[in-house]
């Protein structure tokens, strides 16, 4: 028998078997076994292909392929399920569950960083990334925080040597950037920072910040306020009320803290706002001329502002997370919720 005849024979045999299969007299496993398994009819057709003279091979190969496809499509076209006894029942129970992989997630801190970057990106801020290991000079001295400055109390530092440390704030990337670039500057610098603080519900030995730096001609405190007001409204909603309070950071002068009005509607509002309704969101200020002097910028020509936000704090507020340690534990039941 020629291979072409063989193909035809198998095809007509299948038509008969297919009727039995639809009637439920033979199972899907059986019919697949006969035609589609390794030892099935189609497989043997393929092995006979080697006997065909080379010039006919493509044509005949194609025929076998077509037959195989048609057989498997026809079997699959009947929705079948196998019950315990292996009996085949004709079924189209659309209520059976579909197959779905578990949902993945993106870490809440990544989500916050991405959202903040996007907001500032719209008004011309680009992102840069610094190193977690830095020197005392970039982390402190160049930012107007000398060795025995009381402001160092605000930041307990992990040291690697006398002079090298784990950065305590992303402000350390300011001077690095300004050393290598000239104004105008509009940058954000997100990243991980470290503080030598005991781990508790409210504090961790590391956290994430986003630093912002803006340098240009004739930059004013009013510009700083406008930028951060824009941010607050984008992030917390268009009706967000904000206020600025004088504060102190050695690398900005004047320095301020920005609060948003959180409300006093629930007991937890009282707790997190200490009864004032206001919540501290970020620190900011006009770049201190001492910092510009560290990078040889002409302080008569350039002025600027800087701001810094704590990502964990904002994530905890936004999602109502009450224990900072959850962010670093990796519990999938926690992580899965952030998409």
């Amino acid at each position, binding site marked *: 028998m020629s291979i072409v005849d063989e193909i035809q024979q198998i095809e007509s045999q299948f038509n008969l078997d297919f009727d039995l299969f639809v009637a439920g007299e033979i199972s899907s496993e059986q019919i697949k076994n006969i035609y589609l398994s*390794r*030892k099935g009819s189609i497989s043997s057709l393929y092995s006979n292909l080697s006997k065909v003279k080379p010039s006919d091979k493509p044509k005949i190969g194609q025929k076998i392929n077509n037959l195989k496809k048609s057989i498997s499509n026809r079997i699959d076209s009947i929705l079948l399920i196998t019950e315990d006894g292996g009996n085949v029942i004709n079924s189209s129970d659309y209520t059976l*569950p579909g*197959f779905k*992989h*578990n949902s*993945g*997630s*993106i*870490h809440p*801190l990544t989500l916050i960083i991405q959202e903040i970057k996007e907001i500032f990106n719209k008004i*011309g801020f*680009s992102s840069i*990334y610094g*190193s*977690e*290991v*830095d020197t005392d000079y970039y982390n402190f001295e160049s930012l107007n925080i000398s060795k*025995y*400055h*009381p402001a160092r*109390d605000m930041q307990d530092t*992990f040291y*690697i*040597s006398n002079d090298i440390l*784990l950065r305590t704030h992303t402000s350390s990337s300011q001077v690095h950037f300004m050393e290598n670039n000239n104004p*105008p500057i*509009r*940058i954000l610098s997100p990243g991980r920072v470290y503080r*030598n603080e*005991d781990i508790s519900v409210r504090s961790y*030995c*590391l956290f994430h910040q986003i630093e912002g730096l803006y340098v*240009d001609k*004739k930059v*004013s*405190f*009013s*510009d700083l*306020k*406008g930028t951060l*007001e*824009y941010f607050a409204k984008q992030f917390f909603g268009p009706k967000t009320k904000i206020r600025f*309070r*004088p*504060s*102190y950071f050695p690398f900005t*002068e*004047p320095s*301020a803290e920005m609060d948003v009005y959180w409300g006093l509607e629930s007991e937890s509002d009282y707790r997190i706002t200490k*009864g004032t309704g206001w919540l501290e969101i970020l620190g900011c200020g*006009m770049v201190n*001329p001492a910092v510009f002097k560290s990078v040889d910028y002409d302080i008569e020509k350039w002025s600027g502002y800087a701001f810094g936000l704590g990502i964990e704090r904002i994530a905890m507020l936004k999602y109502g997370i009450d224990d900072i340690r959850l962010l*670093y534990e*990796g*519990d*999938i*039941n926690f*992580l899965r919720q952030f*998409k």
Partner: protein
Amino acid sequence: MKISRNWLNDYIHSDKTDNDLEDQFTQLGLECSVSQIKINLDNVVVGKVIDCIKHPNADRLKICKVDVGTEVLEIVCGAPNIAKGLTVAVAKIGAKLGDFKIKKVKIRDTISSGMICSGKELAINEENDGILILDDNFTIGSSIEDVLELVDNSIFDFDMTPNRGDCFSHLGISRELSIIENKEFLLKKNKFSVSSFKSSDLINVNIKDDSICKRYACRIIKNIKVTESPLWLKNKLESIGQNSINNIVDIANYIMFDLGQPLHIFDFDKISNKTIEVRLSSKGEKITCLNKEVKVLSDNDIVISDGNSPIAIAGVIGGLNSFVNSKTVNILVESAVFNEINVRRTSKLHNYSKEASKRFERGVDCDNVVYSMNKFVAMLLENYSGETSEDYIDIYKNKISKSIVKFNLDKCNEFLGIDLSHKEVDEIFNKLNISLNLKGDEYLCDIPFYRNDIKVQVDLFEEVARVYGYNNIPSNTSFTFPSESFIVDSELLDNKIRSFLSFNSFNEHYSNSLYSEDDCKVDSFYKPIKLINPLSQDMEYLRNSLLPGLLRAVSFNLKRGTGFIKLYELGNINSYNSKTFNNADQHKHIMLTWVGNEIKHWKNTYIQDIYSIKGEIKHLFDMLNINNFNFNMTEQSLLELNIDNEKVGYLKELGKKTIEKFDIENSVFVCSIDLDLLSNYFSSKNIDYMKINNFPSINRDISILINNKYSNQDIENLILKNGGKKLKQLNLFDIYKGDNIPNDSKSMSYSLKFKSNSRTLTDNEIDGYMTEIINNLKNKFEAIQR
């Protein structure tokens, strides 16, 4: 720092409510919170314990008979210090202590008709270890409010920024209050009479180095009596959380909290050599402090010495050898200004951060030294006997002159974005006690001594801003974007990967990047960086791999019953490198982990194994549009991830030893990718579009029998090498072992797709390639075509 509202009234009175003041102080940059003390001690009276016996049914309780004037009450008391004869505070039936109402109660079968109170129960101090013992002179039955002179008060607790050393006192806060109230106040003159002896005859003061002590004043007071402090003084100190010690120490503390000048009191008779010397310590020198701790000094601590040995660590703590005690008769009061940096270094080094050093570190007012000392003398002599010298010693060699700072109004307006007139700015400076001289178009500003934080023009801009009100400055909400400030974000790749992974069931993890020594050995490719002051041994190193952090999380989840895990972390790791500015190399990596074999489903159970994992990784690289990516097996169970033959990562199943460290039994696959390397191949714009053509492709299948020692990689490499440039796709579609196949062999079937972009291929030329492939498979791998 606690500030008493009643105490502020000594300087300036305000009609504002506590909450208004809290808000206005905060708006001025002095963040604070207020709490109110309401005295409501009706029915709490002075009583005398006339009998005190042990309770028959309780070891720790006593039954007391207490005379409260109108009657004798029987009261059960558990305080350890209760005793017959004491004068105590008794809360009678009906008294309310906070929310607690005193009723008649039965305690272990004895009826108790009231309560003997502790200081804390009366809310007058924090003492709760025993009952409050009162002065025996108090009249029995009189009201506690009256005899203890208790009044309502409000306490402002300030969270002071380090630049405002001038605000660490009631005087300092009063100055700020005068800005709010827009009223001036003057300091009262110190009045006291002096005796005819001279301090300068009795003591010799010698400052070894002017740079460590800007000003040193002292005065001797003779024939004093160390006693308990009067009630009003005790109350004032207690209201701001300070315990009373004795009259001398209390008055000195009072002056510090009142004026901001820390004083130190020496027992004059204990200063041998009648010499005071201010000098730096020499290394190894020892002093026994008044808390009886022995401190070994460095060569950088400022000490007060009697010419031989130290009698105090200047500005930090006194020595036991010169300390005032109940036998002290003659004292020397020291009022000085020591170098901020030395005091700070010393208090850090010896771990003393006390009220005094806190003030010295932030700089105290040189101009206030003598006034403060004399206020101490005046207060002491007004309340107690004693005689002070007619002179005092005041060493102030390099007299500090007022600093003059230039101020340009136009610049200020431009800098803040406001439009103040000369008159308005005059008013602001007037409130701040800054006097002005207009010179040309600039002001010359005289800065008060106490504002040591105002040094340059921007400091004045800040003063103007805070007095004008930050919230009165308009917000400019129009933005400009100079095109030259744009930078391409290097996180584009990271976020593309994150997004892909989140669509493919991965959860993103952030782990603690401080590791133990053992953690660093788990993946020791990079040399870790060690901290010199870690929080604990578990967190001594900065991470050198993402693996341990992920395995900890995997273990955590397995223990909580999650068996199917796809977790990754993207972050920085560091390795030691002596050649960089920070002795570190930072690498951005991503590591993925897979745990679990299958997800059961009624129709198609999903199997997770090395092949599904390889597929996911290949999919990821496809999505990143990175061509020329392939897996390369270099050793058993380890696949390198290569792009253009550069290794950018690896995929492997972790060994038993590694996972056992994390208490994991399941098999764990990990894939690590160096994102710094990967980014060289990634560009958000690297879509390489090719014109679509309709030349047909030619497909061929090939099936071979081949020895097991040849891997798929070997076979594929050979086919690709011999298939010519037109071979566009190679796909393994079947592997078969078993019947009809020798045990050492396997059957492998591949489909090949040939295509040209410029013409229709002929069967002949493809046959040529196929023959070449088959011959090579035969010759090199002894394969047999099936």
